[in-house]
């Protein structure tokens, strides 16, 4: 009787110690779910979702404060991935937050730029190079296409230019047989 109690007590103490040690040794920093959501988001930091950046939006999704369809740069595919990850129902992108656009980068018209540095302050990823009263320019490779620099520009010299495919970034198409329109079909053809 006593020995059984002692064995149980010993087991309880040993397992408790093991659990306690594990909780100290294998402590996770931050919320892994937020990081997983953040990894899906496109990191444009554009704020179209209504949060000041992708991480805050990810935190809001994880906390149940925001819906999964508020990220236009992530697009339809992003919503699907979030739905997959969170086990929620897919829903189309909320038009309130904007529409999905082809990937663009901002380009400064260097002749019109007055060197006010407002765009530099607006850029969330430090992709704009310049100094006060000096011409500014955008490092295209670093630009996420968030459009945050467009509004502050007093000279209206920033334009969003869609990124064209190059030989290196071109993608093979999904293999389908082209369906040719029948010769006598109505003249109104899809553009």
């Amino acid at each position: 009787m006593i020995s059984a109690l002692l064995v149980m007590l010993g087991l309880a103490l040993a397992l408790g110690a093991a659990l306690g040690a594990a909780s100290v040794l294998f402590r996770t920093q931050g919320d892994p779910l937020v990081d997983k959501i953040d990894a899906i988001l496109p990191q444009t930091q554009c704020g179209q979702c209504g949060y000041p950046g992708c991480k805050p939006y990810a935190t809001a999704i994880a906390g149940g404060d925001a819906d999964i369809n508020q990220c236009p740069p992530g697009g339809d595919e992003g919503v699907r991935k979030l739905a997959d990850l969170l086990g929620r129902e897919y829903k189309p992108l909320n038009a309130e937050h904007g529409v999905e656009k082809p990937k663009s980068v901002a380009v400064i018209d260097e002749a019109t730029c007055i060197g006010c540095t407002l765009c530099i302050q607006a850029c969330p990823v430090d992709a704009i190079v310049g100094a006060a009263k000096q011409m500014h320019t955008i490092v295209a490779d670093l630009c996420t296409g968030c459009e945050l620099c467009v509004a502050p520009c007093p000279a209206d010299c920033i334009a969003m230019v869609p990124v064209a495919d190059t030989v290196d970034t071109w993608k093979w198409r999904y293999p389908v047989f082209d369906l040719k329109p029948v010769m006598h079909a109505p003249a109104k053809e899809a553009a």
Partner: protein
Amino acid sequence: MLRQLFSFNGGVKPDPNKGASTREPIARLPLPPQLIIPLHQHIGGTPRPLVKAGDRVLHGQRIGAADGNVSSAVHAPTSGTVVAVEPRLMPHASGLSAMAVVIEPDGLDLRIEREPFDWHAATPGEVRDHLRDAGVVGLGGAVFPSHLKLSAGTAGSTDTLVINGAECEPFITCDDMLMRSEALDILRGAQVMRKMLAARQVLVGVEDNKPDAAAALKAAAAELSDASLDIVVVPTRYPAGGAKQLIRVLTGIEVPHGRRSTDYGVQCFNVATALAVWNALEHGEPLTRRIVTVAGNVERPRNFDVAIGTPIGFVFEHAGLKPDTDTLIMGGPMMGVPLPGVEAPVVKATNCLLASSPALFPPPEPEMPCIRCGECARACPADLQPFELYWHARSRNFGRAQEYHLFDCIECGCCAYVCPSHIPLVDYYRYAKSEIWARERDKDAADSARERFEFRNWRAEREKEEKAARLAARSAAKPAAKTADVADSAPSPADAQAAAPATTDPKKALIEAAMARARAQKEAAAAKNTDALTPDQQAQVDAAEARRKRAADLLAEKQTANAPADPSAGQNDAAR
């Protein structure tokens, strides 16, 4: 000496169709009216252009400098004038343009003075730099910069150098003809490579359907009397010319997923690359020409020695393109890609130009559902399960496709060749691969954006802290200064502003004065839209003024009534 040969799984035996283009020796193609030399012809960084429109260039002059180490130079194949440096149509399935140097030959073919390079005395690093600047890249099809593969970073770890002369794809005979005519220099190039890699032996693999090439190589090897050189004839089976497949046949080493042949002491080069290495080192000759097989639906199928940059249409003119040609293909019938137009130039990767006609290559039969017969798996030389890859690629399930080692697929086309349902399997794999690459690029861009965003936030935070610290230090220093010069107490307005917390009498006076000024201004400023009012409007304005006055009076009354000792007032304020 008899050597034990090994075998790889799968493979197919399509009709070689090599006879037509090997009847005549290699012909040197004349220069076209315009040469279009793309800057980016190899794996790695795009070379920087060294010339601009209007410049004169000489034969062998460098026109594009290697950008970084994983890159290679490009050279002018003749003398002439640079007409333009602009995007031109590329021999690529996309039909997109890329930067190219357009040269109009002057017909003089003046050579640039060659800088003597004593490669016997040079260090391995110098030899590699020389090869990079001579534009030597792998000519078997992958166009990987050769100097990177000749790195002695793994000195002593390379046992076998494999020289690939298998040339297994139907129609292509450029390596065959090159081996017949330049066997000696190919083997000399191989010897140089062996020295650079410190390899024990050199194995030259030639398929047994090229007896002339094998005989020429054997004669050359006998002339060189190098015991480490061995010419090995391997059985003809497509794709015996794949690097991993040839290594397996010659050495029995099976390179597993995610590893390189160099991990197992084997390095592999094409025969034409060996020759290019020899020419670059011994003769200082950069890579500006290559042998191209022109075959298929042409009058005179043949191998041509073509200047790189020659428009494809010009090459086909010389071979006599038949009128019923429907598609032009760069490469062979199994792995080739359709060309977007005849203006595209011959590049370093162009081993074959194939004209196709409905009679030669009938249009593909309609794709039928996969019946899971497993023929593709039996034919796959990379030991993959093509039907699984197809299934996952088709359903855009790229993660699963990668789990089935999609990237070990060499796109040889054996699976599509044997498929009884005529599924264009390779198209699905190419689609899936390019989608995965695009996703990886997006992910890398997102990661870098996240990092930069976080750094920016951290910097903003740091700046804020620094500013707060600065202000705190200043305000701590100020009172001390104040007490010091209290003697001459006639502070200037600036001084008064700076010492905000210290409420001295002169400061109070200043504020009072400013508020008085503001009040005076407010009273002076009349509402702009109050002249020329109708009596009706005037009445409304008067009523509003009266209400405002009453409200102000009431408020004043209430304050004087509540202020003395009403504990609830504070609470009300707080609640409001």
